[in-house]
C-alpha cells in the first residue's frame, strides 16, 4: 500500500500523486529556465549566453 504524504492543510495525498505533482512542477520550472537561457531573445540573457548556445550545437541562434 502506498504511503500517504500529509500536508500542512491536512489533506493527505497518495505518494505517487505527490511525486507526480512535484515532478510536474520541477519539469515546468526546468522548461522555463531552459527556455529563458537557451531560446529567449532578451538581449541581456542572449548576449551573455550567445557563445554557450552556439557551443551546444543543437540550440538555434542567429
Amino acid at each position, binding site marked *: 500500500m502506498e504511503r500517504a504524504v*500529509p500536508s500542512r492543510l491536512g489533506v493527505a495525498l497518495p505518494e505517487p500523486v505527490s*511525486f507526480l505533482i512535484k515532478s510536474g512542477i*520541477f*519539469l515546468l520550472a526546468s522548461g522555463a529556465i531552459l527556455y529563458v537561457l*537557451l531560446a529567449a531573445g532578451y538581449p541581456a540573457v542572449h548576449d551573455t549566453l550567445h557563445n554557450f548556445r552556439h*557551443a551546444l550545437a*543543437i540550440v*538555434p541562434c*542567429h
Partner: protein
Amino acid sequence: MERLRPFSDPATLSVRVAKSDGRAIEQGWVTIRAEAPKRRWYLSTDFPAVEGSSLVQMQLPLRQGKAEWKYLFPIRGEYRMTVDAATPDGSKATKSFQISIRENERKWLLLGVFTFCLFASGVIAGRIFTGTRTTSSVNLRACLLISVYCLGFLTGNANAQEKEMANYVSRLEVDPPTVGRMSVVRWSLTGTKGERKLAARLTLTITHLEKGKSVFSMENVPVAGEFSMQFQFTDGDEYRVAAVAGLYGGETVRAEKIVSVTPVEPPVSAMIPALALFLAVTALGLGVGRWSKRSVTAL
C-alpha cells in the same frame, strides 16, 4: 575535408576544368553556386536561418584551368556546390559536388556534459521527491541551484565607400546584409581621369570581426576593373570586407568596409526539438531517481 569543422578554419576550394583529353583549359570562367545543408526535421544546427539557403554565387576566371578561393563553412551537414564552366568558344559544362562537413567534436562533448547535468538533476530530484515532503521542498531548491551552477560553469546599410589613391578610385559596395539571404558585394576601380575596365589583380577578403576569422577570400584574381558576387553573411554580427587591387603598374589600391549584418531570430519550430530533448532527459532522470530510491528502500 575530414578535418573541416563549422566556423573553425577556412577551407581552400579549387575547381579545375579540363578538356576531355585531360588538358587544362587556358581561358574561360566558372560560375559557382553554393547552397547550405537542408533543414532536418529533428534537431536544428546553431544557425537555422542559414539551413537550405544560398551561400555564395560568383563568377571567377580560370587560370591554367583552375579557380581557387577560401570559404569558412558555417554549419554542419551536406553542402551542395554547382559549377558551370564556360569557354570563349562557347563550350559549357556543369557539375555538382557534395561537401560534407562534420560538427566540431568539442560541441558534441559539451552537449553531452550539459545533457548529463540535466539527467543528474532529474535523478537527484526524483530521489528527493520519492522521500518526505519537508525534505523534498528543501532539496528541490538545492537541486535547482546545482543546475544553474552547472550552467554557469559551462558558460564559460552599407553605403558605398570610396578610397582614392594616386590616380585611381576603388569603390566597394555591399547591399545591406541579412542572415539567410545573399547580399551583393560590388567592387570597381576607375581612374580619376575616367578610365574604366582597368586590368588588375583583385584580392577580396571577408572577415568575421568578433571571431577574427576569414570567412571568404580569393587572391589575385584577374579582373577588368570590376567584380561582383552574391554572398551570404551567415552570422548576425559585424564583418570587414576588404578589397586590394594590384595594378599591373605595381600600385595597389585598397578599399575596406565594415558591414553590420541583420540577425534573424530562429523560428520556434527550430527551438522546440532541442528544448523537448532536454526536458525528456530531465524527466528520464526523475524516473531513474525514483526507481533507484525505491530499489534501495525495498532492500
